[in-house]
């Protein structure tokens, strides 16, 4: 099942893709029965996120792209709730920066508390999946406690959605194609089979020292093909079976700066 959380007509609703119907003009159906168009609603992250855990350099090709040598432990960092944004949102590119890039990633949502979980049992703790687009502003990267929050935890720079897809509906999360399009042009491709540390391995690693709770989410890293984006660019992140996550880049003036 695919579910979204959207704001519409004064309330926040759970929504599902609208069933095909000749008379229904709409994309999604709210829990109360109304069928509405994709652009009539405000899309929120499709679940209530707890701790946001992200991976750096977890695809061999992307690590190579950034001239990074092999690692013996996953490169994990944390993000706060203020950076999260839903589908069709707007992300600010600060004026004066030279390199701000998207990162299309598979997001794994925890469904059952996980403490010291073995790799073989790890997938039983996964509720489902969604697409993440985890922006970085490389100009702000410093050499202290990388990746520093000014580069990776900016307001509205971590996009989640559009749908939360139940784990039962994803046949093999370890074999999903990822793609990013900028203004319709394909700029990034990858497949989760190329993860350096796969999902069971990440859950085993993390749950060995931190208890994971329902709603905690792991952004599993991005493959090769990151590119600079400019105000006005429309960035679409796509993962097989999870949908298409759209985001627009805006300049400072839209934010009153």
């Amino acid at each position: 099942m695919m579910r979204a959380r959207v704001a519409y007509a004064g309330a926040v609703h759970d929504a599902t893709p609208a069933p095909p119907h000749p008379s229904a003009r709409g994309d999604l159906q709210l829990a109360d029965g109304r069928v509405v168009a994709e652009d009539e609603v405000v899309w929120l992250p499709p679940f209530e996120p707890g701790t946001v855990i992200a991976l750096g350099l977890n695809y061999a090709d992307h690590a190579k792209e950034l001239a990074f040598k092999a690692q013996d432990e996953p490169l994990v960092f944390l993000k706060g709730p203020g950076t999260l944004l839903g589908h069709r949102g707007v992300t600010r590119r600060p004026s004066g920066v030279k390199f701000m890039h998207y990162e299309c990633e598979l997001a794994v949502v925890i469904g059952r508390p996980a403490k010291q979980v073995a790799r073989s049992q790890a997938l039983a703790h996964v509720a489902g999946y969604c697409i993440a687009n985890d922006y970085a502003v490389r100009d702000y990267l410093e050499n202290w406690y990388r990746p520093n929050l000014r580069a990776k935890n900016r307001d509205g720079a971590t996009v989640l959605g559009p749908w939360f897809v139940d784990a039962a509906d994803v046949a093999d999360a370890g074999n999903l194609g990822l793609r990013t399009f900028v203004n319709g042009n394909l700029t990034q491709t990858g497949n989760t089979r190329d993860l350096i540390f796969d999902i069971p391995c990440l859950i085993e690693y993390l749950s060995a020292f931190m208890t994971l709770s329902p709603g905690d989410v792991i952004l599993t890293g991005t493959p090769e093909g990151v590119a600079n984006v400019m105000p006005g660019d429309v960035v679409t992140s796509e993962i097989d079976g999870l949908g298409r996550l759209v985001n627009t880049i805006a300049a400072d003036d839209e934010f009153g700066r």
Partner: protein
Amino acid sequence: MQAGASCFSIPFDVPPYRLSGTVFGALLNHRSALAALGDAASRPPYDAPPDAPVLFIKPRNTLAASGRVVMIPAGTSELEVGASLGLVIGRTACRVPEARALDYVAGYLIVADVSIPHSNYYRPSIRFKARDGYCPLGPAVTARAAVANPDMLTLRTYFDGSLVQTASTADLIRPAGRLLADVTEFMTLAPGDVLALGAAGPAPRVGPGRTVAIEIDGLGTLRIPFMDAAA
């Protein structure tokens, strides 16, 4: 009980009355902490002292109220305890001007940034800082009005009653208002969020069987017993 549940029972008698569960902290923001690195701060892999605030996140599994035991994992003999003043945000703080930053603060509490000691600050693993219970905080949120000047507070850390470190918020590189201004330039803080201003360095190290007490003038005492996980 859930790892983080108990921090929400911390007494908090002014709006928003409840912590959000999001805790940010600054590192190397106390002059002594940066000074402890000496010339190394200007050499590889760092190349230069930090420009923007160096921040960390303590996720919800780390949050714990005063008195909860911190476990020292197998293979580790001692943990570092970074005593810090924590600001509790009272209203949405986005791009706050330094001069008015404290208007956004609901109150204050004591935050202990507990870590497995690590010598490299380039890209340390989160397993050093994000372990269950590694962010004791409290004992209560003291209302902003009850603290005359957050930039003139003394912090004292005791091991089993013996004083091991004294520090002052007067020695912060970015004092409360400046840090809030610089952080909220790119990252909005929400009501109930905590921003720890930064511990003095070098952080004292504690072994199993000891109880740490951190005291800040007017904010009370945060007590943290340490135990060996292998015991």
